[in-house]
């Protein structure tokens, strides 16, 4: 992979065909630029309603930080969908079945070393308030919280031994998003788009769809580009209204026709400027960026136009139910975006505005909290997996589901559970991963990961591998060394990549 130059000349990073022309001594003529603009003009059509053809692929863009770059080796998947359950999902009440908890309900967790919880002090062991059943050919045990996901277990590979380093929401969210528990590091999505660019030049390469109720802990720093160029930060798509901030001018202020006339004049002015300053690719890139923005005005709403989906599809994602509708919309958007070549989509369930209610942070009451959130996401997630599969997209899409940590097998305040970075369940699907398997194990109570502990670095290394990137070779020079998403660690999970 060509590593973009990063030391101080980032503005000269993207050498375009036009630069090459200059370097050959031709200089940019008005003609070449007019051709470029003419081409863009044609491509700008969709905003004017001429169909969606121009919303896919490179759309004639030759100069952008998001042009597709070759992978290190054959990629198993083209896109990534990350489903982040904000607040901490209890593994022992969902996918990590622990019959021993029934037996030891009300007893102390003893003889296992010091038990540290986030708030106060630990309570006794608590059985799950939910029943578990076996699903699919694999016979995977799943609790009553996830009957629909239960229906697709044979597509999912469960990891019961994920383990993080911090008992804190923010720090562990950083860890699973950036590999570091310190603020300021680039997110997985930023690394991926930095490494691979995007298949679609008319839409952002890395899209984040937060819970409509609000953002997660620390908000945008969870999809920040950190020390990578800012272009690689996640772009928020909102689930209602215009998906992107400032996608359109305020109502009635500037018509599409006015925009077009302005952009034509802008291109003329910029062309004069480019002619006076030949050989500087960022100047021509800026011209393209306006045409791309203009196209995006049409392409982005089209990409998330859920109304155009069939009723059957909408039902499949749970849009017919008030509780599951919001996440269902997020999931349909995700499918539509990866269908159009967007490289990374991250969906969040959980918003911190009303932390104990709106996130999975079930300190007070597992049933109240998880009951609600599972209903929000169960149907939509099953719908997403099924829909991707029937459209033939599942094989080329990596879906990863997790949280920032698991929860304690102990009770808190009677019927709640406190944070537990010691064991979390992660599942992955698509990308040709063998479904129905269970990887690693937590101890008999689900307190700590015990067999085949999987760290965030391991998960990230594996995710990168599946999209054709060697985590040790994807580097960016910063702060005196070649930084990696996986720092100096990261082992591939053999059952996933095998």
């Amino acid at each position, binding site marked *: 992979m060509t590593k973009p130059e990063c030391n101080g000349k980032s503005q000269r990073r993207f050498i375009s065909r036009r630069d090459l022309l200059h370097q050959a001594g031709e200089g940019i003529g008005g003609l070449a630029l007019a051709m470029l603009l003419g081409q863009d003009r044609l491509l700008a059509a969709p905003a004017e309603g001429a169909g969606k053809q121009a919303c896919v692929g490179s759309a004639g863009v030759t100069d952008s930080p998001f042009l597709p770059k070759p992978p290190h080796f054959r990629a198993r998947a083209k896109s990534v969908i990350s489903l982040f359950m904000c607040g901490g999902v209890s593994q022992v009440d969902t996918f990590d079945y622990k019959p021993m908890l029934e037996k030891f309900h009300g007893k102390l967790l003893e003889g296992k070393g010091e038990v540290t919880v986030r708030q106060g002090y630990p309570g006794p062991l608590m059985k799950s308030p939910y029943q578990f059943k076996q699903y699919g050919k694999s016979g995977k045990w799943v609790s009553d919280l996830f009957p629909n996901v239960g229906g697709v277990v044979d597509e999912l590979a469960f990891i019961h031994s994920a383990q993080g380093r911090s008992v804190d929401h923010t720090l562990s969210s950083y860890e699973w998003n950036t590999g570091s528990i310190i603020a300021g590091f680039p997110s997985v999505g930023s690394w991926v788009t930095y490494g691979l660019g995007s298949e679609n030049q008319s839409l952002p390469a890395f899209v984040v769809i937060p819970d409509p109720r609000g953002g997660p802990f620390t908000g945008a720093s969870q999809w920040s580009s950190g020390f990578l160029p800012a272009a690689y930060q996640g772009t928020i798509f909102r689930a209602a209204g215009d998906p992107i901030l400032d996608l359109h001018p305020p109502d009635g202020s500037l018509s599409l026709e006015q925009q077009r006339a302005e952009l034509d004049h802008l291109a003329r002015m910029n062309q004069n400027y480019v002619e006076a300053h030949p050989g500087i690719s960022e100047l021509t890139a800026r011209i393209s960026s306006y045409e791309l923005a203009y196209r995006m005005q049409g392409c982005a709403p089209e990409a998330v136009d859920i109304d155009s989906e069939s009723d059957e599809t909408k039902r499949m994602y749970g849009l017919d139910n008030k509780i599951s509708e919001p996440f269902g919309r997020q999931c349909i958007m995700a499918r539509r975006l990866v269908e159009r070549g967007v490289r990374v989509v991250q969906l969040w369930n959980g918003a911190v505005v009303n932390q104990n209610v709106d996130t999975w942070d079930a300190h007070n009451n597992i049933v109240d909290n998880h009951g609600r959130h599972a209903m929000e996401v169960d149907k939509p997630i099953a719908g997403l997996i099924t829909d991707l599969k029937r459209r033939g997209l599942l094989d080329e899409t990596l879906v990863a589901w997790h949280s920032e940590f698991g929860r304690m097998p102990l009770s808190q305040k*009677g019927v709640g559970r406190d944070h537990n970075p010691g064991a979390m369940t992660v599942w992955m699907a698509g990308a040709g991963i063998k479904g129905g398997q269970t990887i690693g194990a937590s101890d008999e109570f689900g307190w700590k990961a015990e067999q085949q502990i999987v760290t965030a670095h391991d998960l990230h290394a594996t995710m990168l591998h599946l999209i054709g990137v060697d985590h040790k070779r994807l580097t960016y020079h910063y702060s005196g060394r070649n930084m990696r998403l996986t720092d100096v660690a990261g082992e591939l999970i053999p059952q996933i990549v095998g």
Partner: protein
Amino acid sequence: MRLPSRITRSWIGVLSAWAVAALSLLTPGSSVLGQRPQAQNVTAILAKCQQCHGETVQMANLSMASRESLLKGGNHGAAIVPGNAAESLLYQRITGQVKPAMPMAPFPALSAEEIAVVKEWIDAGAAMSGGQQVSSTANQAGSTEKSAGDDSLLVFGSYRERKITDVDRQWWAFKKPVRAAAPRVADERWNKNPVDGFVRAKQEEKGLSAAPAADRRTLIRRAYLDLVGLLPTPAEVDAFVKDSSPRAYENLVDKLLASPHYGERWGRMWLDVARYSDGTGYEYDYDLEEAWRYRDYVIKAFNQDKPYNQFIVEQLAGDEIDKPTFDSVTATGFVRLGARVFDRDLENPNYRFDYMDDMARTTLQGFQALTVNCARCHDHKFDPITRKDYYKTLAIFNTFVEHDHPLVPADEFTRYEKTANDINAKIKAINQKTTALEAPYKKELFKVTLAKFPLDIQEAFNTPEEKRTPGQKLLVAQVSTVRVSEDDNERPTKIKVNDADERTRKDFEGQIDALKKQLPKRPPVAMGIRDGDFRFTPHTPFQPGTTGGITYENFGFKGKYLPSPGDQYEPPPMYFASTGLGDFADEMQAPVIEPGFLTVLAPGKTAINRPVNAPYPTSGRRRALAEFIASPDNPLTARVMVNRIWYQHFGQGIVTTPNNFGKMGTQPSNPELLDWLATEFVQQGWSIKQMQRLIMNSETYKMASAYYQADSLAKDPTDQFLWRFPVKRLEAEIIRDAVLSASGDLNLEAGGPGFFPPVPKSIVTGASIRGTWLLTKDDPSTWRRSVYANVKRNLKYPMFEVFDQPNASLSCERRDVTTVATQALTLFNNETFLRQAQHLAARLQREAGSAAAEQVKLLYRITFSREASARELQQALEFLKNRAAAATGSSAQNAELGLSPMGELAHVVLNSNEFVYIN
């Protein structure tokens, strides 16, 4: 040992000193193999592996220091099978047959010849002459001192500190700058200013032609945007163009350097380095309420042209200097401004280590361009900085406690504190009465709450205490903490009480309100630091003393959080390798590391004197570090700062990695120039303005950017050697300021708490901030200069965010310039910028009258500081005509934001390349 001068840095940039020295041993015929005339010494090849697999560091538990250790192998088994290279892991790795291939990036792969030597050596039995060791040059070079047994080198557990030697000190950045006379060049134009001589000589060497001088209109716009970040008015442009004085340009530069807006522009550059923010970041992003005083301090320091050495000392140790001032204690905000979790920090001792890491990293990257942070867990892989050096640096910061320095005379602040404490004590007493009043009600409510719990929990409560099982005891303890007076979000709600009690409670509330009104206003304070002992941090709302923290008293430590005058102050010890993650009882077994400077810069023991004039006991550690950095003898300090100045003026540095002058940074493109500037900087009394005067009066700075020369472009496409003035995109803040200054709307109110630019409510309500974000209107109150906008770590003003404003949690050495569609969307569609276009059009109408041609001409003068060409004028008029024709047929517009044809033209201009670039 002298370095062979012909060995220059390899393209990959990681040939560290030991490798250079190893290569220098390779002379033909010196091979131990002796069979092949060109053969290289296998030990010299294996020396390349020592950094990661040597005596000091054994990655994957493999040492390659001796034949025995190679046979012993590491995690993946034996490294060599004598007599069989093909079966040897070492051979398989260096050939890439087994991944990962070795040496690992960023080290270059071995050459085919080197691989052949290793193969031959293994196949021949992998013999080493008696007792032969492969050693890294760190040890070879320091032949007078041996690593083992050297008392000054730390050995602890598996850690063996590497020896820093004179070879390490040969790196360019560690040698004192050498001032050479400026070269004389053929063209006299370049012989007047020493800067030009250095630049032109390099151009001649590279065969580059230089651009002619820019015209005056270009120059004045460039100088304004560069120095004050605002557009010159058309009148100022005209006056400059007509000024016949030979000193016209010099006077212009002087005038701009004296402008109060200069600091607003240049202070921002430093705020990037200082990772400035008004919020704590992490989960809650609480307000750092007084941080803005540090921001104003920086702006003022630039405006006053505070000598840079003084600027350094004040920021690191403004509280420890002989006569601290309100300014100097405010400056210590530099140390305190990093991101903070600010939640149960006492329970998580590791947080403090992360904070100190931030301090050490920001200080040494910011002032010394060294990445000491790389040595947190092991000796630096590339630069001569040991892990012990890192802990020596941490020991300097380990004395810090956060402190709000009063910005009023001490007795006034004492009076305030006494009055406030008295009133607060009364309030507390009344609150206790309220609590007592509510207690019986809470007890009743709890019964109701308990009835909702599962039966086994109720049973636990009903079981007499002495008969409860251990599990039941825990349950009762847990459930007893359930507060009955809170909603789902643990927000307290008011408990219902009977009418008589309600009257009493109301009365209490009335008393509290009255007392609160009596609370005196808190005098201003500076958010800084001072020395103290963090181990005795009092418990506060942010630092609740709950479980999990370390009770240092239990380990026999005695001390005081803030030592008073006359107290014996013993700084808390810094234990080697401690991270706050381990058990303190274990961590404190490690050797105590004394504070000190980096060995490579300051060999020997660091002498630190206690300041004698300080108003309270303080260690003097930060002051010693500050004075060491601010010394004219420090080889890095002046170079680092002149490089930042150069970077800001030319959009690229002489060293393109301003925070890293180590081996993983880049080398100076013009070392003689860098050294000359660095020595000049010191000679000029560390005056930043003087350096700018010098640079801006150079021919190099005055060159045109609109210049094309095919041969030069081919030879130097990135303009590294400045054969033309590089166009630079304005920073996010300056784009916004320039737009506001074009429309005439800019509100120049300076200083004070940050303002909040208007954003949609939805992005604020969804944000993870418990600090303030005021929803504001797009009106004069928010049309202030961008440097005064509140900087949150968890929520950026979206326009700043898309235009590459850096992450405020890490020191930023240089702004990225990315070009993406969301920038176009923001500038083209955002309400603020539409309104500004409208206001700009109104200004044209006001100032140029109703004739369209006159308005267009004025538009060009305001925004581009130049006249519109005939062609541009004609194209603009054509645009206006077409737009007017189209508008007659268009539907009703948003009266408030609709654009007239002239508004549309202004909107286009504000979006144009020429507007957002410095030419």
